[in-house]
């Protein structure tokens, strides 16, 4: 039993955190909803992302990737969440994993790993999971992506970003088949499908964890410095009670992420998926609850566009809904656990 990050993982967290912070610093939230910059990274930023190995991180070595374990990918994604990175790294990782699970050709995966082919995953209209086809599908975290593949191998160009809650990631609709880009794909085995699902849910948990931890840290910092009635508001018990429960939620989410990320590569696929659903259900509820508390802890200033507080809440709500919120997963778990077999 060795639970937690090893030295190498901690170093990776630090280096990817530094790059994530730098990317985030270059993004302009603007002065209001009509003034916000696109989450599409500049060519230069995309090159830095590719150079850092993020697009290749998880793909197997035979597919031009680095073959990282899910724990390592989760380490990266937590940093994306922590800094609210406005670049489709998560979408790329998920799309790449799906393509690999569907047996996409090596050349395609190599192009994704090298950042030359920019892809996004297609989700069903309710964002509950991967879309069975391009009809009514949504290309998720797809800023700057040029193609999205349906499970039948058809390639689809993407339309304009849709109005969305999250200001740091885009959702677009498929906008026409690109005939010459289509691929031969095969249906995944049950195991591959479950493991892909578990992997994806785990990354969303990681993004939620990073987001809620960043929000709580900022709220604590605010509570230390903001004074009312001649004292820092963080010295008031009412504030401390809220912040403490939030830390409990953050730490429990971290434990859930660790287990879920470990399970993707270590446990049988159905058990891994079950763990990931559990983690996603917990993190979806906890993540939004913490970000809501952070709104409260920041007071009025946190409700302004200028404050990062709404960016966290937007990202948390989007992570929560994407690939199923707590209710969706609890419903599945209820069926698994409470139905006579």
């Amino acid at each position, binding site marked *: 039993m060795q639970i937690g990050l090893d030295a190498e993982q901690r170093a990776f967290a630090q280096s990817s955190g530094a790059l994530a912070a730098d990317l985030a610093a270059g993004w302009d939230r603007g002065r209001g909803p009509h003034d916000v910059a696109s989450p599409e990274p500049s060519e230069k930023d995309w090159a830095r992302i590719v150079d850092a190995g993020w697009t290749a991180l998880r793909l197997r070595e035979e597919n031009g990737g680095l073959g990282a374990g899910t724990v390592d990918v989760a380490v990266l994604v937590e940093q994306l969440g922590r800094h609210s990175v406005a670049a489709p790294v998560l979408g790329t990782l998920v799309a790449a994993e799906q393509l690999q699970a569907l047996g996409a050709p090596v050349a395609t995966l190599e192009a994704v790993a090298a950042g030359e082919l920019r892809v996004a995953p297609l989700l069903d209209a309710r964002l509950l999971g991967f879309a069975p086809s391009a009809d009514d599908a949504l290309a998720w975290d797809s800023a700057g992506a040029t193609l999205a593949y349906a499970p039948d191998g058809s390639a689809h160009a993407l339309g304009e970003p849709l109005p969305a*809650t999250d200001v740091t990631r885009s959702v677009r609709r498929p906008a026409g088949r690109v005939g010459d880009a289509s691929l031969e794909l095969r249906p995944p085995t049950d195991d591959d499908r479950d493991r892909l699902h578990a992997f994806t849910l785990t990354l969303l948990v990681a993004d939620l964890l990073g987001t809620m931890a960043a929000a709580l840290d900022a709220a604590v910092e605010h509570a230390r410095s903001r004074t*009312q009635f001649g004292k820092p508001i963080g010295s008031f018990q009412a504030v401390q009670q809220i912040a403490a429960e939030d830390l409990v939620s953050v730490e429990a989410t971290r434990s859930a992420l660790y287990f879920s990320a470990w399970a993707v590569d270590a446990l049988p696929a159905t058990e891994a998926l079950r763990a990931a659903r559990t983690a996603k259900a917990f993190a979806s509820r906890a993540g939004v609850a913490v970000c809501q508390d952070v709104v409260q802890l920041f*007071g009025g200033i946190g*409700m302004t*566009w200028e404050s990062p507080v*709404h960016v966290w*809440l937007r990202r948390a*709500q989007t992570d929560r*809904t994407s690939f199923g919120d707590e209710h969706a997963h609890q419903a599945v778990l209820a069926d698994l656990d409470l139905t006579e077999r």
Partner: protein
Amino acid sequence: MDFSDSPEVARFRAGLRAWLAEHLAEYADGVSYDSAEGVEATHRWHRALAAAGYVAVSLDPEYGGRGLSDLYEAVINEELAAAAAPPPPPIGHIAHAVADFASADLKGRVLPGLLGCTESWCQGFSEPGAGSDLAGLSTSATATDDGFVVNGQKIWTSWAMWADRCLLLCRTEPDQPRHRGLSMLVVDMDTPGITRREITLANGSREFAEVFFDDVRVPAANLVGERGQGWKIAQHMLTYERGPADMGWTGRLGNVLAAAQEAVRSGHLPADDVLRRRLAAVAVDAQVLSWHVARSLVDRSSADPGSSGSVDKLLTTRVEQELYSVVDDLTGAAVVVGDQRPFNEYLWSRAQSIYGGTQQIQRQIVAQRLLGLPRG
């Protein structure tokens, strides 16, 4: 015990309904604070309501009101909500402050414009360093021979971008302790030295602004009440602001609830048993809130209105936040991708536990003033 309208109230309600049926369509279109046209439409709507006799009806007739009880204010809010009309001008608390404290001269000068809605007002209370701790505010009004010179900064000033006048809480007696040093001034917003800066909220709302005062000269005749009476007047106003009558939220929450129920009934928003039950649970809470607000209104004269206003606000916040949470879950993925109105309304509901005194402060008020628990 009788929750039904008295004949007088029933008559008043019927009259208002008839007026709305005839005039709402004419005025309600485009009312907002998000553009110059929207603001113009808003002012038109307010003036029409005022001309019809539905603004500040609880004020004494000598000041332009109709001398009706707070109940009638609630009826107006209810009926406007029920008709999906824009809200009435939120000036009741300002009107009461001026009517109850200002000199005859000042009243004569400002009440007609205020009540007729020909002049638009804002209320300069909160400051960057004084939110919950209002008594700690630092905007100064230094007395001169013929008035005051104001310096400082206000924040969260609703409608300040378009206001003609501001009811300003400021410090005139720097040598007095906290509450004692404050006074209330009426400031013309076109006085030199005033700068306004719009605040955009997370939900896109542009209702609020910061207001900067740089050597702004205010005549002595614009002092409301006495010097040092500012805190007392502000408390008097907060009573009205926090009370259910001036809030008008219950009816609007009822509309949101009814729309959600209709969407579920018609199958427009598919809902499993769990969501249906959550919607039913919040409908229970909303119904109890409306009964409670009715009781509070009638009770108002007998209780400490400031503190029971805090009870009402805490209850309203509970209901509102849960309601929008359920509505968003019903709406599902369409909240995060698509029309952003539901998400913006949800965001706004989260602010309800902050504005007008945070939930934490409201609870402290309830604990200390109503339950008699000792100060920390």
